[in-house]
């Protein structure tokens, strides 16, 4: 592959998180019985007319704002004509001449280096119905028909399957962050057409493009691209010619296959949708929508590194989920030890949530309580094992850490006399180990500290215990 360069472009279709369909007021994302969420409009009955869901426009424009698109102040809709039984009108209402968002870019990370993937445009369109192919017939359920979609079309800026994955993950993260889509891949909320070409290294002209249609898992896209790029290189290496074609991914066989080319497939006969007036936006509306945007993950990551002095790994984990990031930030702002907050959130909090399959909203512990717990550790009021015990109580029941420490009697024993007593008892009971330490085996001390902890039922300050033992053994 080294002597070839790959160019990958994606057409990403995302279902928007609206309550109703794009062109009629019937519930979107209905998963019930077939054909229960339909009306004259989404069934394409004679005389039915589309009416625009303003929320879909808002979400698409917000997506454009997140990636720095120019927002068209006048945008129009077009009919894309093709016959297929999943499209009730046999045309799809889409945008061709004047889409809502033009240009823009998404930054991805390629082996630690940032790379910009340019976006050509984002347009709005309606989803098709669900069709099930049986042996001798096909069944159609129009519940999904006219669910709002936006299609984001990138430039062919990705050079590897990994970059395509990185792009999709970054995009998905943004869309979930901003509440624009749940991006549930299993429900088909994100679907991609994947364009790829290869050209010999050192040349500029893009190679012949092949399109893999309708991919709906990121892993599948990675595998399909890996296969497809190798196939294209192989064809060229063996002196063959590539033809521009549409292929499909056979996941089981792990190959892409040409689709029997539809004779008329590419003559969509676009023309303006006469039933929908233009979308006309003013700057004030666009700015109001911009103000609703959350801080983007990339910006948030940079800020976390700068403001909280966290390592990149921590920031990646903390910002992957907006609610988690918010929890961290609330705790960090009340704590003097941001790294400890990060460790607790990434460690105990995620573990506890994961074990019980809960979301951050379900946890009873407040950011303030976590910050207070960390302060108790830092003040050596409690030791780590005790802190974990307190955390578990706070996680399940909530409350104030100091109160839990008191209630459970978990405060550390830092009283020198008491610790000396434990140390003497530990040495007396383990003469052999004590002798080994005296003989120069440093690690033997750890065993004795463990014994002190045991005798103190976990409450002794381990550092003080070690100091006391050392003093007595050397003494």
């Amino acid at each position, binding site marked *: 592959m080294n002597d070839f360069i790959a160019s990958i472009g994606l057409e990403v279709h995302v279902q928007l998180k609206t309550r109703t369909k794009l062109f009629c007021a019937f519930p979107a994302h209905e998963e019930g019985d077939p054909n229960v969420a339909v009306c*004259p409009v989404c069934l*394409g009955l*004679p005389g039915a007319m589309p009416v*625009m869901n303003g929320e879909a426009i808002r979400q698409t424009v917000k997506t454009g704002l997140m990636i720095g698109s120019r927002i068209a102040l006048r945008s129009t809709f077009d009919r894309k*004509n093709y016959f297929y039984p999943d499209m009730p*009108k046999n045309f799809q209402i889409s945008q061709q001449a004047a889409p809502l968002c033009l240009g823009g870019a998404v930054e991805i990370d390629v082996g630690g280096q940032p790379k910009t993937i340019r976006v050509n445009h984002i347009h709005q369109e309606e989803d098709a119905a669900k069709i099930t192919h049986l042996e001798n017939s096909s069944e159609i359920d129009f519940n999904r028909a006219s669910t709002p979609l936006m299609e984001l079309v990138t430039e062919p800026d990705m050079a590897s399957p990994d970059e395509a994955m990185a792009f999709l993950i970054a995009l998905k993260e943004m869309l979930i962050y901003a509440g624009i889509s749940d991006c549930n891949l299993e429900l088909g909320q994100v679907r991609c057409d994947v364009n790829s070409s290869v050209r010999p290294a050192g040349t500029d002209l893009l190679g012949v493009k092949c399109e893999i249609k309708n991919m709906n898992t990121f892993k599948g896209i990675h595998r399909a691209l890996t296969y497809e790029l190798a196939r294209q290189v192989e064809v060229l290496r063996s002196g063959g010619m590539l033809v521009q074609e549409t292929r499909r991914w056979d996941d089981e066989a792990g190959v892409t296959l040409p689709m029997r080319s539809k004779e008329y497939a590419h003559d969509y006969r676009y023309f303006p949708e006469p039933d929908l007036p233009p979308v006309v936006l003013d700057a004030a509306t666009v700015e109001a929508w911009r103000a609703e945007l959350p801080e983007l993950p990339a910006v948030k990551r940079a800020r976390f590194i700068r403001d909280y002095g966290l390592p990149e790994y921590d920031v990646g984990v903390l910002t992957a989920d907006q609610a988690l990031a918010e929890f961290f930030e609330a705790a960090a702002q009340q704590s003097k030890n941001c790294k400890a907050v990060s460790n607790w959130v990434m460690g105990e909090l995620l573990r506890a949530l994961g074990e019980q399959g809960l979301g951050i909203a379900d946890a009873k512990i407040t950011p303030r309580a976590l910050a207070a717990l960390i302060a108790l550790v830092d003040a050596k009021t409690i030791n780590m094992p005790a802190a974990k015990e307190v955390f578990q109580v706070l996680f399940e029941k909530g409350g104030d850490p100091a109160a839990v420490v008191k209630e459970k009697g978990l405060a550390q024993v830092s009283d020198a006399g008491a610790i000396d007593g434990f140390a003497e008892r530990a040495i007396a009971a383990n003469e052999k180990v004590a002798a080994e330490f005296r003989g120069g085996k440093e690690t033997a001390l750890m065993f004795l500290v463990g014994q002190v902890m045991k005798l103190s039922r976990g409450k002794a300050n381990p550092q003080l215990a070690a100091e006391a033992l050392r003093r007595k053994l050397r003494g």
Partner: protein
Amino acid sequence: MSADLHDLGFLEVAEALTQKRASSEELTMALLARSEELESKLNSLTWFNREAVLAEARAADAARAAGDNRPYLGVPIAIKDLLNVKGQPCTAGSRILKGYVAPYDATVIARLRAAGCVFVSRTNTDEFAMGGSTETSAYGTTRNPWDTDRVPGGSSGGSAAAVAARLAPAALASDTGGSIRQPAAFCGVTGLKPTYGRVSRYGCTAFASSLDQIGPIARSVEDATAVYQVIAGLDPHDSTTAARPVDDCLPNVRAARDLKGLKLGLPKEYFVDGLHPEVEQLTRAAVAQCRALGAEIVDVELPHSKYGIACYYVLAPAEASANLARYDGVRYGFRAEAEDLQEMYEQTRAQGFGAEVKRRVILGTYVLSSGFHDAYYLRAQKVRTLIRRDFDRVFARCDAILGPVTPSPAFRVGEKTADPVQMYLGDIFTANVNLAGICGLSVPCGFTTGGLPAGLHIIGPAFADARILQIGAAYQHATEWHKQQPKI
């Protein structure tokens, strides 16, 4: 008085009901009896269901007896078989929709229903409103009540013939390139094509969505105004309807007596070679009448008029090719037996559509197809702009435009079916009004020596519907043409 109940116009019926001089049941029975008597000669209706309609009429009578005093309660109206009425068939004059029963009301129907109207019958139409004679209907040609060897015009020929023949006091129709005004002119009745966006199209089986508009056909401008007033206005189901209020113009229309202070334009392009001499003479006489009523008549120019038909026959078929794609045998209507999906599509549409529809769908597909889109479709969109600008310039100095509605009176059945271009040229004075999105009214203005009606075309700027109705009403107050009845 039951012998003449069918003679009453829309407002006369409303008055008779309000004054309890007749019941809706009696009126409806009279119309149904007359329909049964005359339909063998006219074929203007595609459907009427005696029992269902009488039940509606009785319900209206019962409501009135219980104190309901909506002004149009129980008034019968005929509906072009293109508009969806819940529970009634809606064929659009096509075999492909045979047996289809509408599961919802068009907005205009919902409004008439709310006003209390009874939907007495469904009227014949050219298939998907594509035609100017009703000869493309899959349910037979409607005959002109003035001469049953002749066509009633189209596509709303059924509505015009039914109103002229007194089978209904008024009817709803639709106009894409002249389909209300031309049959109104051919049948000696009054027809209004409202401004685009004034009346909701929701529930009107679409032909060309940027041109279609629903309007009334009636026996007088007053009646047409009354119906228009009910159906006009913003509709949340049709995003192209205008947010402007609809003023109650009926009092002004009823009071219209003269045309003083109005400047009316006479386009020289509307009086050219090929205009039937008697139609020209009748139109000029009507213009003289308007002058006599006080209007100032001025010569104006609409230089791009002659490109209107060509422009229309690119844009309308293009939109139709998409609008009619949904008739595919999947969800409703006719389905041809087939082994696989492609064959089902191609055979369903081959057997379900008639020749004119196929011609226009193929033409429309072609003008949008790759390689030809710019030469035809895009160019026609620009010509449309030029045609609109022509009207803008004229309306900057005139209140309305006068002219003929049709280049000839009603032609004979079969006379033009072999030559589509000749048929299309019949829209020469009407289609431009749709392209410009403005309003037009056809009022009867006399008869040829052969006894065929002609129509005066009153064209107004966008949203001046009330104005052209007033002009038409003043003209009708001074003339008797609209009161003439065909002898069948």
